[in-house]
């Protein structure tokens, strides 16, 4: 445990190095959020669409923002670069489990993301008015869902980054992941807006757990019983992906080519 704590601490400290970067990033996501809010406000000004009213959509977007910010600073670029460049060789001679080590690093970076979410959501709520938090059980379920989101998102990012062992390229992998993730998680638009069959596929995919599940629970658009099912799906995917990623890693190692020094 001491080893993984040390890794988490190292990332937590490294994150501070990029204060300016982070500040710029904060500006960018804030502008994006404001733009989305403005667009939906116009769309939903007259009447609700697919059952979403403007106040609901506002909350949905805020939860989506929070969910989207968690585990976004995770060093997938760094990990991909280390695989492509061969620096992963040095990770392999450390007495730690590679997957757990990367997860520890993700946890280490969380604090700064949570801080960022706090600032942006706080400012938005201050400007546009408060939100009604759901009742006890639904709130508890929401918190569990947000907590599960951390390993789930980590595993999706981690697993797709492992593809670098095969593709020898990261940008394509990252773009593909982002496209699929944005659409099927409900980050772009709520899943209810998708064609029926696609909405069903999305709902059972691991991606729904990235945005849709916590947002719907928070909004009370699903009752606690249905919410429990959605959270169980999240948990199921976390377990499945955790072990799936291990198999991938093992297969990837066989493909590893490290050229030069």
């Amino acid at each position, binding site marked *: 445990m*001491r*080893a993984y*704590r*040390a*890794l988490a*601490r*190292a990332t937590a*400290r*490294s994150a501070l*190095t*990029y204060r300016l970067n982070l500040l710029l990033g904060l500006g960018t996501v804030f502008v994006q959020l404001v733009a989305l809010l403005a667009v939906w406000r116009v769309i939903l000004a007259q009447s609700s669409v697919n059952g979403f009213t403007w106040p609901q959509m506002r909350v949905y977007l805020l939860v989506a923002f929070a969910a989207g910010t968690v585990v976004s600073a995770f060093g997938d670029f760094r990990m991909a670069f280390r695989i492509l460049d*061969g*620096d992963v*060789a*040095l990770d*392999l*001679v*450390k*007495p*730690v*489990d590679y997957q757990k080590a990367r997860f520890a690093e993700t946890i280490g970076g969380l604090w700064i993301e949570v801080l960022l979410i706090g600032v942006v959501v706080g400012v938005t709520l201050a400007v546009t008015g408060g939100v009604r938090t759901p009742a006890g059980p639904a709130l508890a379920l929401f918190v569990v869902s947000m907590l599960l989101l951390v390993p789930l998102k980590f595993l999706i990012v981690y697993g797709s980054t492992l593809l670098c062992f095969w593709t020898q390229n990261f940008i394509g992998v990252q773009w593909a992941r982002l496209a699929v993730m944005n659409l099927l998680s409900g980050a772009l638009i709520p899943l209810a807006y998708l064609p029926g069959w696609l909405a069903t596929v999305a709902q059972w995919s691991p991606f729904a757990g990235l945005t849709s599940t916590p947002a719907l629970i928070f909004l009370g658009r699903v009752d606690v019983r249905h919410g429990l099912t959605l959270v169980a799906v999240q948990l199921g995917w976390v377990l499945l992906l955790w072990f799936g990623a291990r198999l991938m890693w093992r297969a990837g*190692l*066989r493909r*590893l*080519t*490290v050229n*030069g*020094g």
Partner: protein
Amino acid sequence: MPIVEARALTKVFRRPDKGPGLAGSVKHLFARRFQDKVAVDHIDLSIEAGEAVAYVGPNGAGKSTTVKLLSGILVPTEGEVRIDGLHPQRDRMTVAHRIGVLFGQRTQLWWDLPVRESLAVLRDLYGVDHATYRKRLARFDEVLELGEILPVIGRKLSLGQRMRADLAAALIHGPRVVYLDEPTIGLDLAVKDRVREFFRSIRDEGTTVMLTSHDLADIEGFCRRLVIIDEGRIIFDGDLEAVKDRFARERILHVETARPVPLETLRASLPGAQVTVEESEVRYAVRFDRFIMTAGQAVTALAGLTDLVDFRVDEPSIEDVIRRVYSGELVLDETGPRR
């Protein structure tokens, strides 16, 4: 039992075989053809605890690949490796505690953290207790002068500083076996000297060292055993001094005389040696085999002919020998002692 053992160790890389230009790349998309490149070809190697082994070979000979196989980074295509009797992939965690690896061209420091923090993370990764950690750090500091670089952020280190910090990073857990892959690449002479002194200190403490280097000065006076690899095969494995005795027997005596002496006279007094005139007519070079004649005998013979102003003896270095092996001039395999 040897601490490092490799049997029939082989690594084959598969490279896409693309035709030239865009056409070749497009064609490759549809008809994928691959070419096998054998980087390491059935190597047998065993290293005893406490040995310092030099592992040399020309570029692309398979040196780095061997080191990566021996440290469990790459999975062998064929054959097997044992470190302290352990399987480097299956027992990765245990093996990691026993080996230290330094790749001169890569760093294991955290780029955004001061060196001190990086070393502290490694301390926790390896579970080194604080007292031992402080003791090791103090000892590294003696030779590597770490003090001044501990507060520096990783990415702000100069190459020499980075290498010193990386050496400390590779050894902070007190590994029993250390692989040093090009540890002095790009360093200036002063830093090289310090780093070499450090190597000697860890060797003297009983650490097993496998050193890969293009700078043969790293090897002389440090390694007793020499392993030469070429095209993925070990072409020589034996005693470094023995190689020198056998293949570096020639000595060159450079003399400066008070007056010119006819070459014939010199040659007549030095049978078995080759005498040539150097840049001026009072400077001569005498080449001889040190098993036929000693430098003292040569000087005495010359002093009997004329007054000597100055003289100096050149010894060939192991570098010369290895250079001749690379170029195919020397074939050690047939004559050199093999283990």
